[in-house]
């Protein structure tokens, strides 16, 4: 079945076209064109915008704004986005990374969305024409979201304050068993003063490990210090079951991998 594609120079016009029933925004197409190839008839029209702001990366004074059409490959090679390179490189193989956009990753259902897990830990703000939403709110409402995501913005973490890990069975490229991202701040005595931990594959979309974050506060990043956080890691999770792993397996291995990430 063929899809009609409409291309607009401005986000505003593209947003207007997206109001028509059956239309979806076209990012890199790695999910939406795949769905069409598989016979998903709910998509009858695609809309895209060629607005150059969507493809821009701006990094200054520790603040970063990434346009929604920026690809994983562009993030991985950007000199100012070093701490995020690992998370961008975790997405797919080389050809997928040349196509997969940040905007599309925010909508990718588990087991996908590895980069969105990083953005959730970073407490990114998701921009649309109507303004910005905290990523947590955006993710909760994304199924009903009809407006084009234009950007994500966040404060660039210090290289040693941001940690990311993806577990897959096939290496170097494979679908996630799980992914974890953490932004940790430590006081002078080494105790954790703040922690934001995001999990992938532990629900249908990225989620925070809030109980583990709380249990980590004031603790040292050693075997004893992290024990309570590991015990709390599975609180509130509802992992997916797919051909890569069962929900049971994902829940079993989560504390082990979180431990490795925290002790790294």
């Amino acid at each position, binding site marked *: 079945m*063929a*899809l*009609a*594609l409409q*291309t607009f120079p401005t986000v505003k016009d593209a947003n207007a076209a997206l109001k028509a029933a059956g239309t979806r925004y*076209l990012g*890199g*197409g*790695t999910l939406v*064109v*795949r769905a*069409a*190839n*598989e016979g998903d008839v709910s998509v009858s029209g*695609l809309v*895209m915008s060629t607005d150059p702001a969507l493809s821009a990366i701006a990094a200054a004074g520790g603040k970063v704004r990434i346009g929604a059409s920026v690809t994983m*490959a562009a993030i991985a090679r950007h000199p100012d986005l070093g701490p995020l390179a690992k998370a961008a490189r975790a997405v*797919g*193989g*080389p*050809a*997928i990374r*040349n*196509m997969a956009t940040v905007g599309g990753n925010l909508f990718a259902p588990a087991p996908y969305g590895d980069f969105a897990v990083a953005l959730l830990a970073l407490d990114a703000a998701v921009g649309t024409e109507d303004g910005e939403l905290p990523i947590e709110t955006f993710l909760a409402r994304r199924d009903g979201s009809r407006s084009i995501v234009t950007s994500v913005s966040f404060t660039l973490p210090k290289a040693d304050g941001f940690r990311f890990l993806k577990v897959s069975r096939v290496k*170097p*490229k494979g679908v996630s068993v799980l992914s974890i991202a953490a932004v940790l701040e430590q006081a002078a005595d080494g105790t954790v003063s703040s922690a934001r931990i995001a999990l992938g594959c532990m629900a249908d979309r990225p989620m925070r490990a809030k109980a583990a974050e709380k249990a980590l506060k004031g603790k040292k990043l050693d075997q004893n210090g992290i024990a309570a956080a590991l015990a709390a890691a599975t609180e509130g999770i509802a992992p997916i079951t797919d051909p890569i792993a069962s929900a049971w397996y994902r829940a079993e291995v989560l504390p082990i991998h979180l431990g490795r990430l925290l002790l790294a």
Partner: protein
Amino acid sequence: MAKVPVQFTLNGSEKAEFIDSGTTLLNALRDKIGDTSPKGGCHQGTCGACSVIIDGELRLSCLTLAETCNGAAITTTSGLAEGGVLHPLQRAFLDTFATQCGFCTPGMIMAAKVLLDHTPNPSRDEVVEALSGNICRCTGYEPIIQAVLTAARANSQNAA
């Protein structure tokens, strides 16, 4: 369905066609333009057999809409041989038995070409990483990795 014009260069020559809106580049290349070197293995982005090079970057033609390639320079494996002389990668794939049924070969060669264009002397790990989006049902991969390393050596000897 309305037809839309597409125009791009394919292996250095200008191509212009009218296609149905929403046609994938893979289908446009194979069914309209007659370049059957990119293969349709899965149409899901998972096998890499449809890999082509668009403006210097490796892409999956099964997930790319042809009309988004207006003005682009596209390279496929059928454009690599020059005047009947095989490209060093093609030669190496034959010499090291890196092709059995051959279905994955054009995609593998595209992925390898982008690697060697940027990294003329790659390590084994870099080759594995570069080919990680391409699946081969036949060879067990080792001959393919050896072919890419052999082609890289041949290139650097020619350059010396």
